[in-house]
């Protein structure tokens, strides 16, 4: 190699020898195979590979994918630029027709001239004047740089690239202040509610009431004041709001306590009645007692027509010697422990009656001869009206009061009967009671007109009366002597009829609810008598072995009635079943307690009995006692009062036939 090398250098000096040397070098070239070269076969070596020349840039990417925010997905760029730039040089040649070239030409025309002048001046006149001119020219040059001022210059001169000075100036910057203000946030509260149907309804109702109130205010100013005073009383005491609620709860608690009684009242029917055809029983239910009435006897009972569970009890004393105060109580069946309303009176109450239509008006008769009307709606304990000595107070105890239909002026009125023999009608006119004597009772059968002035007829003492259910003017009066008078409202001094009923005072007379002719009377002479008012003798007589305090017809049957006696027994009769005996007689109270009054409930099958201890007991009638007539087995049970009347008629006819036959 060394040898070869030197020869090569020599060859360099001589040109002709170099060629030979290269041949030698080339000839001596040996191929060096890399160790990892592929060994291909001859055939493979000869294989031809075609190579295509395309215009594609091999370095350009084939698939560019860009994210498109418009379609929100990755999108492939369609066509990819295949241009490959290998070399670029920006030149500074301008085409002479282009805008820029034209502008330059225009400008070149001027400074060219200036430059020429400058040169001339500098060379020819090197004096101050020249310098000034130069200065001027320079100045004008400067000026022309900044502003186009010479007329005739079509275009603004651009900045001189060689002699350009940029000068900046700074203006006074105002100091920056930051001012913020923060307001107090408006008070916020979270509010959530559910808009139920009833919330919406309530809102509408309130709105309606507001409108109505506004209308009322516009109408009268008087009403405003009244309204205000009412509102004041309402807001005064919080606990008075509880009144209604406590009442409800009390009744609920009592319902629980007396649950079995309530169940009995509603549903219990004595099954053993099926075995006792002719008899019935009375099931004791609630007992109504009040602490403050000890010593007073129940003198009257009355059911309220409108509110079926309310009844009134009048308390006083039958004893002539012991006369004290009285009480008026109203109980509800729902609460047997405490009365709903109670009023204390100075004199004992002898009778009471609740108005059939306006159930808040109660007429009361006293032992001292007064009558009063109470209004249950008002909370005052004073009665609405009282009769005084001036307005016709009776001198004797008032034994019975009864409401009548409103008279022609639509005033309420009621009647009363008393021991001084007067039947008086009281009319409520505005704020006072006006009385009218209807009948004066006398011992004799009739009082003639002529004798009135001369003889003072002995007044009979009326102890009870009853008005006919249908015939308005007809009424019966029972007296202390035992006579019963049939009277009419029209005739004040004459009776229509007299019945010699009893030997002792007549305690009660009652018309039958159904049959227009029948009435019943009871007396202290131990008897009960049933009459037909056209006949002077009684149809039926029952002896009860003890003074009868009260008798009452049942509202559901024309042949059933009940009586109470002083030995504490209740007797129930059904003339349809047994004409001679009671179908039930049962002691209801402890011994030595006298029963004073009895009343049937208008709807439910219960009766209330009052005794002389001030206690009222309620009893349920067993089914046997409330039998309704069955016409035929296959026909439906006929309803209605006609059936009752027919029943009674049948009895009377039966009675009259044997009478006739006995007479005949």
């Amino acid at each position, binding site marked *: 190699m060394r040898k070869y090398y030197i020869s090569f250098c020599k060859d360099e000096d001589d040109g002709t020898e170099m060629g030979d040397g290269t041949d030698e070098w080339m000839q001596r070239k040996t191929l060096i195979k890399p160790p990892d070269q592929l060994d291909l076969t001859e055939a493979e070596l000869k294989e031809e590979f075609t190579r295509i020349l395309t215009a594609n840039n091999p370095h350009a990417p084939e698939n560019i994918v860009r994210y498109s925010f418009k379609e929100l997905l990755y999108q492939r760029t369609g066509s990819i630029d295949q241009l490959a730039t290998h070399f670029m040089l920006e030149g500074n040649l301008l085409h002479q027709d282009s805008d820029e070239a034209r502008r330059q030409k225009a400008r070149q025309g001027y400074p060219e001239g200036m430059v020429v002048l400058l040169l001339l001046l500098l060379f020819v006149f090197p004096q101050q004047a020249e310098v000034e001119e130069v200065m001027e020219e320079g100045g004008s040059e400067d000026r022309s740089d900044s502003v186009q001022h010479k007329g005739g210059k079509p275009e603004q001169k651009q900045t001189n690239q060689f002699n350009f000075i940029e000068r900046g100036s700074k203006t006074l910057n105002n100091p920056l202040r930051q001012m913020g203000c923060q307001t107090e946030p408006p008070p916020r509260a979270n509010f959530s509610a559910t808009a139920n149907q009833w919330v919406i309804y309530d809102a509408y109702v309130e709105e309606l009431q507001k409108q109505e109130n506004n209308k009322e205010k516009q109408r009268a100013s008087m009403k405003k004041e009244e309204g205000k005073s009412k509102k004041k009383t309402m807001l005064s005491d919080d606990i008075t709001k509880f009144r209604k609620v406590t009442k409800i709860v009390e009744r*609920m608690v009592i319902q*629980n306590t007396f649950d079995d009684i309530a169940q009995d009242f509603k549903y219990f029917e004595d099954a053993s009645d099926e075995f006792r055809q002719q008899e019935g029983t009375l099931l004791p239910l609630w007992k109504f007692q009040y602490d403050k009435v000890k010593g007073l006897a129940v003198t009257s009972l009355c059911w309220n027509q409108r509110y079926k569970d309310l009844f009134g009890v009048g308390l006083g004393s039958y004893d002539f010697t012991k006369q004290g105060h009285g009480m008026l109580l109203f109980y509800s069946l729902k609460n047997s*422990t405490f009365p709903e309303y109670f009023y204390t009176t100075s004199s004992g109450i002898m009778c009471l009656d609740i108005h059939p239509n306006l159930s808040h008006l109660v007429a009361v008769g006293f032992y001292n001869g007064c009558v009063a009307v109470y209004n249950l709606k008002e909370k005052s304990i004073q009665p609405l009206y009282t009769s005084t000595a001036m307005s016709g107070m009776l001198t004797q105890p008032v034994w019975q009061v009864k409401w009548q239909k409103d008279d022609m002026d639509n005033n309420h009125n009621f009647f009363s009967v008393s021991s001084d023999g007067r039947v008086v009608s009281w009319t409520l006119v505005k704020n006072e009671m006006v009385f009218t004597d209807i009948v004066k009772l006398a011992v004799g059968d009739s009082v003639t007109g002529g004798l009135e002035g001369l003889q003072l007829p002995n007044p009979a003492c009326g102890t009870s009366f009853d008005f006919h259910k249908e015939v308005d003017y007809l009424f019966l009066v029972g007296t202390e002597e035992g006579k019963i008078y049939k009277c009419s409202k029209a005739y004040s001094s004459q009776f229509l009829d007299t019945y010699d009923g009893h030997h002792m005072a007549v305690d009660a007379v009652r018309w039958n609810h159904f049959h227009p002719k029948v009435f019943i009377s009871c007396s202290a002479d131990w008897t009960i008598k049933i009459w037909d008012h056209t006949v002077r003798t009684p149809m039926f007589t029952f002896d009860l072995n003890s003074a009868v305090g009260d008798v009452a017809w049942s509202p559901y049957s024309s042949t059933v009635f009940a009586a109470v006696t002083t030995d504490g027994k209740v007797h129930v009769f059904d003339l349809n079943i047994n004409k001679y005996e009671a179908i039930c007689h049962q002691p209801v109270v402890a011994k030595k307690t006298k029963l004073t009054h009895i009343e049937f409930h208008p709807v439910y099958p219960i009766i209330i009995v009052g005794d002389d201890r001030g206690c009222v007991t309620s009893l349920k009638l067993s089914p046997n006692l409330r039998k309704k007539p069955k016409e035929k087995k296959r026909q439906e049970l006929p309803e209605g009062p006609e059936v009752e009347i027919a029943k009674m008629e049948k009895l009377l006819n039966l009675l009259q036939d044997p009478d006739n036959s006995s007479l005949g």
Partner: protein
Amino acid sequence: MAEVEETLKRIQSQKGVQGIIIINAEGIPIKSTLDNSSTVQYAGLLHQLVMKTRSTVRDLDPQNDLTFLRVRSKKNEIMIAPDKDYFLIVIQNPSD
């Protein structure tokens, strides 16, 4: 006012009554005859129950309203009478 107090006393003296609680419209007990913890517990739970019941009744017919609610359980009976602003709760054991 005395009338209401008397009525409450009478209720308390009825047999089997364990307690009376009066709560206002928000469920806070105003008056109670039970001890504090029981009162608070009863008040909280029953207030929700009554509101729910009342809502149900009125939803069915907006002109209707709840008169009272009785919850009878094995051991006792809880009676609730709602008013516009107050509830009165009585717990009674009727079998006593």
